[in-house]
């Protein structure tokens, strides 16, 4: 069977062998599902009894015949689809694969069911979207939200939408002919919703004159064919073709077949028919248009019905009605929102069938309706991302009164306001899409926003695909599981600590008092029996104090030492660890995101309580949220800080949070030695830092010489003399030494304490310490200051450092200093005299010295 490389989600689908369109199954859960034959084109006619069946898809889809593949280039980039059509055409896009593994249309239960990955049916949530490209029409740049209009050119004008940068003004032709305007979603027929992208000819309809001759004539079709042939890169992506356009067997007529007509599938546009599908009969059901529903239902229209007989206004042929979902997923009011049918004035028309003009006998085939995503937010977002894979515009939400998504701009590319409902699929540098999208005023940041044709797409089908990595920007934190111990932990107060201390002095009293007298007979054995040791105090493993309310059980109990029950109550400890969360804080640059915001000019240190400070690289967190999680381990008395940029851990730091309270003499000496070692380590580290820094500074002499020779002299405003540069070079070198050291070794510069007690005495807030340049300007003889006037003066005389590939005149007025100018073409003056070789050299020098535009 046919396979198509579609590039969905940026990855080609190698084959569709896993996709099967089964017919005849009663439901998706039919145990014989796999045994039903795959759907083929030839079954269209013979399976009109699907009315009572269920058309079920498993993940994937098998093409019935290669004939379903349009005879035109198929490429990997969805962004090719539809762009650069020289004339109006309509590309309907269906949700490919949807977000579910399978989709079932359960006609019996009157609902559309999506079988999700976890085998549960999701409520009906889907979107539709379409892409338009339009030529100029007699209405110039006006937006026409009129699905029934026929242009004088006879082009397909069902919903003609095109670029309108200003809500009130007409704009130039160059601006209008872009895929910049999206109508709100048009409803898609049920089957079109599933796995079908095709370019198809929509029959325009003029309600006053029936099908106009200009449409029904060959002229329009010829135009259509010519247009498709001339498309530079209009490559519709076909997954499966689920609709067939039929016409009367009488050549030249493209209206709806009537009952009894013989019809043939019409594949003038590159599709091939394999056989005559036979006669139309009166059955309402066909594979495209499910059986009619009655009752409290709405209509989703917008395609040509295959079969059926025109009938009065409540005819349910040719469209899908969605009633109340048996699972309660959608109410009729929701459906009204979801599939709001509108009349010609854009007024919602609920519960209406196809508008039938009893006089002309024709249907209004194309109703523009919009779809508002309802249902769970996650499902809606999945569908948006599916739409975004096509790299095209789509809209999200209800239309406003005007019925379209406005874009307001001053001039062609000066966007002042873009309707937040207008979304654009993001295309990567290779022209592939991955489901990301922009919205509203963010749209102009995407390069494809400005595309006029596909030649601007970086996509190259011949370019070998570089295997892509899978990236993840989220660190997963595991649940800390149960911890079984051989000891018992009690949460107590200072009062209980004192009581325990006093009780320890009398804890053996019962053992040595026999009959009111002191008797030390068998004392050892008695101690071992009660305390498992001959020293009761050895039952105490540790006593720690934490700077927090320790999570404890609801009820207290008597503290036991060994088998001995004391008179003191304590609460069993409830948790092994506790996580403190410090609120994610967006880190914004101070100097308008210039080099001054980054090292070595700006330094950052993050102080985490009990863990000390850790050097942070501004480049790692500027523009992102800085999150800190501090996990307190009650077992060891330590704390581990996880520093995150967004949701990704980038650093960890440890510290002691609990104060170890010595209980015995042995414990006291252990604690003291720990403190001593910690302090000694820090001292050594500080010495190392000083030595390393000194070496770096002394080696910067070469830098001094270079700067000094270039300029010499004393400082002149804007031009630094030798001494200033020496100082700066040394300062920069010293800072670089700091930077290098902290990143080669463990952070040695800390704010905090090696001891927990010291740590308690200091700030308990998590704090980002920022060292940034004051911006003081060095002007000899004047106090340091930094102001806009000096910055402006600096710009005029020297200009701001940058690295931009541009035409010199495109950067606006002012000084421009460039390098490597492209003077390869003919350089002439106003009268056309060519520059001499010498003048070209002069021009190069002039550009490198600077030109003032």
């Amino acid at each position, binding site marked *: 069977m046919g396979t198509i490389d579609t590039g969905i989600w940026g990855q080609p689908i190698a084959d569709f062998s896993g996709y099967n369109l089964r017919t005849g199954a009663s439901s998706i859960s039919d145990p014989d599902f796999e045994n039903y034959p795959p759907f083929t084109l030839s079954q269209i006619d013979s399976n009109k009894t699907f009315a009572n069946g269920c058309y079920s898809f498993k993940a994937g889809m098998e093409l019935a015949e290669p004939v379903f593949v349009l005879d035109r280039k198929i490429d990997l980039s969805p962004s090719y689809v539809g762009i650069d059509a020289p004339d109006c055409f309509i590309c309907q896009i269906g949700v490919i694969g949807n977000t579910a593994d399978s989709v079932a249309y359960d006609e019996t239960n009157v609902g559309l069911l999506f079988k999700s990955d976890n085998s549960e049916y999701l409520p009906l949530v889907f979107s539709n979207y379409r892409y338009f490209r339009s030529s100029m029409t007699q209405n110039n740049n006006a937006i026409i939200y009129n699905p029934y209009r026929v242009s004088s050119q006879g082009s397909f004008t069902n919903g003609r939408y095109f670029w309108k940068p200003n809500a009130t003004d007409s704009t130039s032709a160059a601006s209008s002919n872009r895929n910049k305007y999206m109508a709100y979603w048009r409803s898609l027929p049920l089957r079109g919703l599933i796995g079908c992208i095709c370019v198809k000819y929509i029959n325009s309809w003029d309600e006053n004159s029936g099908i106009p001759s200009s449409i029904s004539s060959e002229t329009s079709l010829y135009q259509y064919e010519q247009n498709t042939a001339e498309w530079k890169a209009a490559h519709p992506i076909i997954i499966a073709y689920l609709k067939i356009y039929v016409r009367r067997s009488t050549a030249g007529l493209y209206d709806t077949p009537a009952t009894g007509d013989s019809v043939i599938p019409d594949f003038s546009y590159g599709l091939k028919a394999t056989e005559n599908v036979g006669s139309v009969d009166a059955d309402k059901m066909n594979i495209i248009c499910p059986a009619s529903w009655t009752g409290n239902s709405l209509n989703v229209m917008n395609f040509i019905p295959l079969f059926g007989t025109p009938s009065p206004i409540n005819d349910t042929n040719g469209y899908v009605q969605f009633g109340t979902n048996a699972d309660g997923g959608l109410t009729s009011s929701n459906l009204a929102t979801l599939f709001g049918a509108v009349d010609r004035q854009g007024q919602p028309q609920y519960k209406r069938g196809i508008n039938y003009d009893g006089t002309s006998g024709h249907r209004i085939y194309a109703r523009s309706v919009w779809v508002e995503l309802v249902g769970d937010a996650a499902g809606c977002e999945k569908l948006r991302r599916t739409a975004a894979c096509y790299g095209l515009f789509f809209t999200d939400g209800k239309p406003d009164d005007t019925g379209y998504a406005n874009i307001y701009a001053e001039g062609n590319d000066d966007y002042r306001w873009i309707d937040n409902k207008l979304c654009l699929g993001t295309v990567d540098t290779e022209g592939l899409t991955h489901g990301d999208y922009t919205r509203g005023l963010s749209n102009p940041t995407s390069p494809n926003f400005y595309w006029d044709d596909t030649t601007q797409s970086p996509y190259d089908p011949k370019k070998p695909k570089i295997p892509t990595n899978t990236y993840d920007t989220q660190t997963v934190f595991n649940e800390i599981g149960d911890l079984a*111990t051989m*000891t*018992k*932990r*009690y949460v*107590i107060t200072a009062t209980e600590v004192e009581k*325990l201390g006093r009780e320890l002095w009398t804890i053996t009293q019962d053992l040595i008092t026999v009959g009111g007298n002191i008797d030390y007979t068998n004392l050892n054995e008695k101690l071992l029996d009660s305390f*498992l040791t001959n020293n009761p105090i050895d039952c*105490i*493993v*540790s*006593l720690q104090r934490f*700077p*927090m*309310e*320790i999570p404890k059980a609801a009820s207290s109990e008597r503290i036991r*030492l060994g088998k001995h029950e004391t008179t003191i109550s*304590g609460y069993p400890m409830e948790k092994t660890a506790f996580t*403190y969360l*410090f*609120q994610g804080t967006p880190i914004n640059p101070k*100097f*308008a995101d210039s080099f*001054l915001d980054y090292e070595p000019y700006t330094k950052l240190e993050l102080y985490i*309580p009990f863990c000390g400070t850790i050097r942070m690289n501004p480049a790692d967190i500027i523009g992102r949220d800085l999150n800190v999680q501090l996990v307190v381990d009650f077992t060891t008395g330590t704390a581990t800080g996880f520093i995150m940029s967004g949701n990704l851990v980038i650093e960890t730091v440890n510290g002691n949070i609990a104060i170890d309270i010595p209980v015995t003499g042995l414990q006291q000496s252990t604690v003291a030695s720990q403190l001593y070692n910690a302090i000694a380590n820090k001292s050594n580290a500080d010495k190392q830092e000083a030595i390393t820094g000194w070496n770096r500074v002394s080696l910067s002499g070469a830098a001094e010489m270079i700067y000094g020779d270039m300029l010499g002299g004393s400082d002149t405003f*804007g031009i630094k003399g030798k001494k200033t540069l020496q100082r*700066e070079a040394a300062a920069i070198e010293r800072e670089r030494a700091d930077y290098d050291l902290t990143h080669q070794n463990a952070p040695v510069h800390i704010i905090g304490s090696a001891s927990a007690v010291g740590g308690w005495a200091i700030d308990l807030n998590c*704090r*980002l*310490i920022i*060292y940034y*340049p*004051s911006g*003081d*300007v060095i*002007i000899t003889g004047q106090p*340091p200051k930094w102001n806009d006037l000096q910055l*402006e003066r600096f710009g*005029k005389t020297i*200009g*701001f*450092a940058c*690295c931009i*590939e541009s035409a*010199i005149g495109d*950067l606006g007025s*002012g000084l*421009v*200093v460039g390098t*490597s100018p492209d*003077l390869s073409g003919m350089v*002439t*003056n*106003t009268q056309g005299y060519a*520059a001499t070789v*010498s*003048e070209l050299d*002069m*021009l190069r020098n002039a550009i490198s010295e600077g030109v*003032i535009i």
Partner: protein
Amino acid sequence: MTITLYSTSADKRAINKLSKATVLTQTPITIENTDRIDLLYPVFELAMNTTYMTANYLYCDTLDRYYFITDTRVNTAQRLELVCAVDVRQSFADAIRETECTVIRAESLSTPTRIQDTKLPIDPASKIVTSMVLPETTQSFSTNATYSYLLTVVGGEPNITP
């Protein structure tokens, strides 16, 4: 061959010096050179005129180029000689605007960029130190918490703590 004389105060790097120039000769002056004229460094000979001596810039229509007047001489015939050097910036202004290059400095950016700029006269030794607190979203630390002591003992039924 005629020239038009200007007096301009524009920066020599400007490609449009005429915006800050005063035309000294409403009608172009016909050159009376008897010798050849160099394209890049011409010397134009004309009648003596004190107004002409105030010029520092000129345009030659025949050569279609603009020139800095680098020197003014009076020759033995009491005629004025204007020693010039071609101004390629003004002469090829349109070509310069359209020339693509790697721009390394630009005034129009208005503020420093991420490109490190050693020419920006800031004082790196002058630093401001400040801090930003990340607020807690869970319970706060407290050095005065009541149930803050954890006693670990051997005895009783061990905890199995989650």
